[in-house]
């Protein structure tokens, strides 16, 4: 868009400059013409008066009179001479003889005057025209065989019988130059301005040419003729990404080709590979070389992407290339996706394609894959703009999963689980899997935690007989702002705090146990409990039981799951954890109780609490407290 606008402005400036230059030229020529016309008009006035005077002085028959009156002829010659200023080079009076030749009657020149009756052959046919018509005319001289004369004013001396003589007043070339010279400062200025304009035009033209040349180099990859990443960025400014399906292609093991045949042959092969790509892809497809051996295809939507992908993949895989007298086949890995509606950011799309590509490569390369719906959701819900807007609009809610007393199957408490609400479909709740990794450690995370805490306390306040546990990352507790937020919330809702359990999950190993113990103590100060989440997996190990005090241990789902798969090894472990819990006076919860068999096993082992989809999915709290509603 910018380039198009620039072109428009460039041509506007160009047109203005040319217009200005032409206007200046027109103005100066108009002004010079006006000056010339003024002088010619003056000459006509002189000629008219002289003609009248000659008629009056020669009694009508001018030729006969002048022939017989030598003295009068001299006098009239002198009078004509009086008019010979810088403006007029020659002034003379001609008549036609019987043979039609022009002969001098009078001549105003003092130096080498023409004799009476001397012949003159005028160059211009206009002499005859004026003689015939009896109407004055200006003759443009400047023709071959005429010198020092700019223009000739031909003024006929006419009586009732027609033209008797022709008064010729030659305006001098020198005077024309003088007239032009009068305008010369303006003319010179105009010329200089025109030169300046011309140079400016040249400069603008050259700059524009250089810009477009540079831009072309930036936009088109010189080796493969494919578009570049810069082109893609600019193209997507005016063409919504959502209008295209995208395919990422990466040639496998191309480094080996370069090593074996050298970079020169490698480049040739890459060029031929791109040509082959052009041949197999659908029309209107844009090919972008992202770098190295990585290409992105933008395929207009509406076609069967999976079929196209397969066709490209198989055709290119089977294609044989001749290089350095050897036949080479190239394999490639390809990831493709239907770009979701509203997708704007090519970085996101490329990231997703890259992730898929990584997956393909790690599975052994030489394959293709189409990214599914789940990834598309991730694309939308992991967008920081979406997250920010959701938090701004407080589209955050909690679902509650019940934790049951295993033996009696009574709800003992609930675990609060955060969800975002979709902006287009409020019934769609978004799992933290999409957004938590994006906002972890940012101010947005604290904002979200604040909203979660608020909802948890509101729920506790609303339902006086329930307990709720909520997840907290250990690193959150190390964060001063986060800890301040929790402390303030607990302080504000002191009466509710004892019904709240913090389930500590951690991404990193606890190293400073004293600090962790101090934080736990601060939380317990208000009566809240501390649970060790996911015990038995990751960093949540026995050292934690040794170093820190816990109110609850939650056995990780990956262990509980094994109760069915490998009961002979899993049951003793689960039993030992249960016994440890009893020993340390901790409640023990079995997570991931997803079916009846697991529940029975857990019950047999006498795990105090159970949690899982078999017993209850995460739902709004009302679903469990008022099941009839």
């Amino acid at each position: 868009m910018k380039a198009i606008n620039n072109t428009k402005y460039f041509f506007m400036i160009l047109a203005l400059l040319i217009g200005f230059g032409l206007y200046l030229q027109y103005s100066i020529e108009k002004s010079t013409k006006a000056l010339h016309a003024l002088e010619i008009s003056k000459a006509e006035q002189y000629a008219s008066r002289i003609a009248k005077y000659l008629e009056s002085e020669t009694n009508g028959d001018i030729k006969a009179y002048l022939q017989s009156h030598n003295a009068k002829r001299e006098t009239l010659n002198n009078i004509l001479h009086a008019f010979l200023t810088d403006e007029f080079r020659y002034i003379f009076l001609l008549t036609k003889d019987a043979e039609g030749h022009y002969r001098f009657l009078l001549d105003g020149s003092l130096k080498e005057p023409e004799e009476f009756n001397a012949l003159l052959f005028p160059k211009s046919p206009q002499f005859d025209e004026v003689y015939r018509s009896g109407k004055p005319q200006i003759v443009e001289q400047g023709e071959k065989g005429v010198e020092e004369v700019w223009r000739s004013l031909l003024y006929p001396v006419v009586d009732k019988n027609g033209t008797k003589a022709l008064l010729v007043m030659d305006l001098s070339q020198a005077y024309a130059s003088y007239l032009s010279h009068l305008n010369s400062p303006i003319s010179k200025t105009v010329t200089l301005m025109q030169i300046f304009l011309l140079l400016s035009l040249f400069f603008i033209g050259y700059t524009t040419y250089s810009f477009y040349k540079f831009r072309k180099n930036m936009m088109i990859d010189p080796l493969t003729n494919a578009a570049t990443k810069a082109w893609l960025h600019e193209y997507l400014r005016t063409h919504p990404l959502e209008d295209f399906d995208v395919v990422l292609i990466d040639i496998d093991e191309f480094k080996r080709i370069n090593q074996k045949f050298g970079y020169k042959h490698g480049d040739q092969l890459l060029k031929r590979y791109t040509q082959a790509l052009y041949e197999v892809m659908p029309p209107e497809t844009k090919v972008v070389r992202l770098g190295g051996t990585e290409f992105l295809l933008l395929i207009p939507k509406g076609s069967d992407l999976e079929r196209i992908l397969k066709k490209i993949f198989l055709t290119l895989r089977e294609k044989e290339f001749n290089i350095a007298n050897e036949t080479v086949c190239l394999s490639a890995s390809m990831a493709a996706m239907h770009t979701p509606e509203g997708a704007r950011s090519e970085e996101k799309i490329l990231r997703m394609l890259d992730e898929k590509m990584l997956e393909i490569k790690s599975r052994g390369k030489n394959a293709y894959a189409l990214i599914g719906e789940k990834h598309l959701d991730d694309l939308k819900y992991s967008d920081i703009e979406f997250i920010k807007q959701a938090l701004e609009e407080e589209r955050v809610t909690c679902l509650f999963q019940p934790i049951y007393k295993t033996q009696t199957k009574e709800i003992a408490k609930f675990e609060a689980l955060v969800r975002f609400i979709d902006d287009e479909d409020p019934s769609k709740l978004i799992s933290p899997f999409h957004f938590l990794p994006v906002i972890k450690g940012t101010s947005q995370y604290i904002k979200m935690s604040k909203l979660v805490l608020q909802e948890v306390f509101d729920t506790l306040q609303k339902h006086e007989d329930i307990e709720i546990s909520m997840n907290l990352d250990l690193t959150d507790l190390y964060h001063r702002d986060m800890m301040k937020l929790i402390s303030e919330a607990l302080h504000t809702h002191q009466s509710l705090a004892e019904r709240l359990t913090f389930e500590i999950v951690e991404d990193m190993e606890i190293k400073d146990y004293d600090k962790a113990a101090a934080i736990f103590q601060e939380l317990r100060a208000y009566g809240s409990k501390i649970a060790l989440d996911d015990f038995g997996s990751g960093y949540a190990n026995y050292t934690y039981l040794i170093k820190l005090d816990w109110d609850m241990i939650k056995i990780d789902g990956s262990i509980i799951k094994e109760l069915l798969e490998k009961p002979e090894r899993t049951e003793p472990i689960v039993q030992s954890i249960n016994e440890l819990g009893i020993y340390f006076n901790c409640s023990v919860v079995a997570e991931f109780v997803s079916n009846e068999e697991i529940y029975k096993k857990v019950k047999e082992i006498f795990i105090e609490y159970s949690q899982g989809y078999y017993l209850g999915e995460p739902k709004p709290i009302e679903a469990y407290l008022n099941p009839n509603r």
Partner: protein
Amino acid sequence: MRALLIFMVLWGHLYAMDTRSTLNLYQDLLSSLIPKKVIRVYVPDQELHDVFTHSVSLIPVSQLQEADIVIVPNKTVYERITSKLASQKVSKFPLLFATDYHLLDKYPDVIGALYWRKGRSQLLFINSRLKKYGISLPDKYQKYSVERL
């Protein structure tokens, strides 16, 4: 240096154009008067002589008796030429063509003239003199011939 070279080339070109134009005029004119492929011209005027050296049909000669035509620039030259021709008793007198109107007016053996009048080049022949030498002008020059001055 380059500008000077360009100036010299342009000036030389313009000069050559002027020379070529004069030469063409004389070639056409003299070949109308003398029906020969090569016309030997006696040209006392050095400038005009230099112009004629570029022609293949007009050959400037140094000996008066070899000339088919003499270009007479002024009275002095006219008198010198006529006295020389008379003394040498040449079998055939060359034609005399003037570059001055007054020579045409004054000397009856001058058949025509090419001269300037009021900034205009003028060509003039006198019919009776042409007839005397058996010269018949082509149509394009007829308008420049008169019975009397």
